């Protein structure tokens, strides 16, 4: 039986070895090499790609990526928690609401992000509407700033926060909230003292699921952020396309991974202390 169990692991392990482990090794190697004249890499091996990160320009990009991802994660949490609570307590309509949460996935993320551009740009729906109502005279600068990027991220990743929160809340014994009320807690106290703390595993899972892809995003920041808000994801993309500096792109993507891992480990330690 134990041997059989290992066999179950084999297909996924093989896939990951080919599609994740092997490319990661290649990325590590590339990050230690010299850029080729027309893209690609050449010898000699060097650490120069990493030392370039001491340039404050790149530090600022990493920092901006981190805080934008953090703000987007917190906003997702603030929006998803009440929604997940609502769905978990909706009885028979649960499945309907859950499918509505997942519904946006039926359309490509790229197209949905373009849709936001049409809504937010100077001649977009929102500005046109506000102007025709006479509420504003100049179009509001809704697009091409950090706010637009955060909006796009929150919109795109909200379901990844809702689903784990829902799963935790749905499993929660309803008699715990009743016991809290029975012992004199008002509804908001029950939410704060019982429901929220017991939801910690879902909050952690959802935050990781949202934060990590937000940290590495390049599509949303590219389309909604314009050229001013370059994030680490865009930096990596640029190195492999227009800049043709593969070694530095590889180093930047590894730096991104390192930041994500450090933050996740910190979050995990925090979680363990709380328990």
């Amino acid at each position, binding site marked *: 039986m134990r041997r059989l169990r290992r066999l179950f692991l084999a297909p996924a392990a093989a896939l990951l070895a080919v599609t994740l482990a092997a490319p990661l090794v290649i990325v590590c190697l590339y990050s230690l090499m010299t850029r080729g004249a027309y893209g690609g890499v050449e010898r000699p091996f060097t650490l120069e790609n990493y030392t370039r990160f001491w340039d404050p320009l790149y530090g600022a990009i990493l920092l901006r990526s981190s805080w934008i991802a953090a703000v987007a994660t917190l906003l997702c949490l603030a929006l998803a928690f009440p929604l997940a609570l609502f769905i978990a307590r909706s009885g028979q309509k649960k499945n309907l609401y859950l499918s509505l949460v997942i519904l946006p996935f039926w359309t490509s993320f790229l197209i949905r992000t373009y849709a936001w551009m049409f809504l937010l740009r100077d001649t977009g729906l929102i500005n046109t509407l506000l102007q025709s109502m006479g509420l504003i005279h100049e179009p509001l600068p809704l697009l091409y700033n950090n706010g637009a990027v955060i909006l796009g991220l929150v919109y795109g990743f909200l379901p990844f926060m809702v689903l784990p929160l829902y799963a935790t809340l749905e499993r929660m014994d309803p008699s715990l909230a009743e016991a809290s009320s029975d012992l*004199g807690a008002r509804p908001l106290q029950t939410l704060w003292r019982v429901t929220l703390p017991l939801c910690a595993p879902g909050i952690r899972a959802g935050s990781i699921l949202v934060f990590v892809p937000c940290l590495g995003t390049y599509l949303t920041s590219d389309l909604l952020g314009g050229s001013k808000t370059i994030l680490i994801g865009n930096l990596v993309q640029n190195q492999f396309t227009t800049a043709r500096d593969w070694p530095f792109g590889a180093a930047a993507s590894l730096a991104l991974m390192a930041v994500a891992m450090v933050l996740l480990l910190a979050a995990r330690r925090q979680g363990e202390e709380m328990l």
Partner: protein
Amino acid sequence: MADDAILQLRGVSKRFGAHAAVTGLDLDVHRGAFFSVLGPSGCGKTTTLRMIAGFETPDQGEILLNGSRIDALPPYRRNVNTVFQNYALFPHLTVRGNVEFGLRRMGRAGIEEKVRTVLEQVRLGDKASRMPAQLSGGERQRVALARALALEPDVLLLDEPLSALDPQLRKQVRAELKDLQRRIGVTFLFITHDQEEALSMSDRIAVMNRGMVEQVGTPEEVYRRPKTRFVASFLGAMNWIGGVGVRPEALTISREANPQGRRGVVVGSVFLGSAVHVEARLDSGEICTAQVAHDAATLRAGEAVSIGWSAADELRFE
């Protein structure tokens, strides 16, 4: 007597869709009593408890605590506390945290002292820093009890608190619970489907069936003078012979012919430790069970016997 009632239910009804869970329920629970609500599953006893606690609102009727209506108040405004069937201990809080929870929400003074006292009362003084997951089933039950008692409720509601314990522990906890109730003098409203529990612990028992109270009385009254067929059958074993109810312990069974008795044939016997149940088929075709002492249990299956009882032990119902 009615002035002494701490909890009163007047014509309380509750429906869930097409299902009438409780219909026209009247109950008087006296101050300091150990009052049990006994009935089979689905009889409405849990709905009754939930309406008293405030988790359900009655469709009709009144619930009065100390003479004031509470049926429209939310649970956190009622001075009753509940021991849940699964205990519903907060898994993220220690034993102390669980017991403190209510005291903090109610803004009571002297919390530390109160927690210590109430944990001593349930013999958990040394387990205050444990998490619920580190406790045995019996200990968890006592934490649930301590948590509810800490708020000094007018009535403590207990929803089948022994059903999650293993059978050996259950008997011991029964005695402890009864003893605790006597010591602290808090009114207990105990919900159970187990007639033995209800009979052994209660001052009074309300027997419920299909959303209605069939009889309220002391354990002896409901057992010895059941008012309805249902009460007679639900509490203890009952033989139905010619439309008359007779308890197994009221039957005599002998090889010698008994002029007042009925004739029958032994079908088998069940050894119960303290006594033996002999099962016999009467000539009328009815099966009855007689409870006899060990030495009388030499009867073998197939033997012809005579079964008798005293007219005073007969229970008749319309």
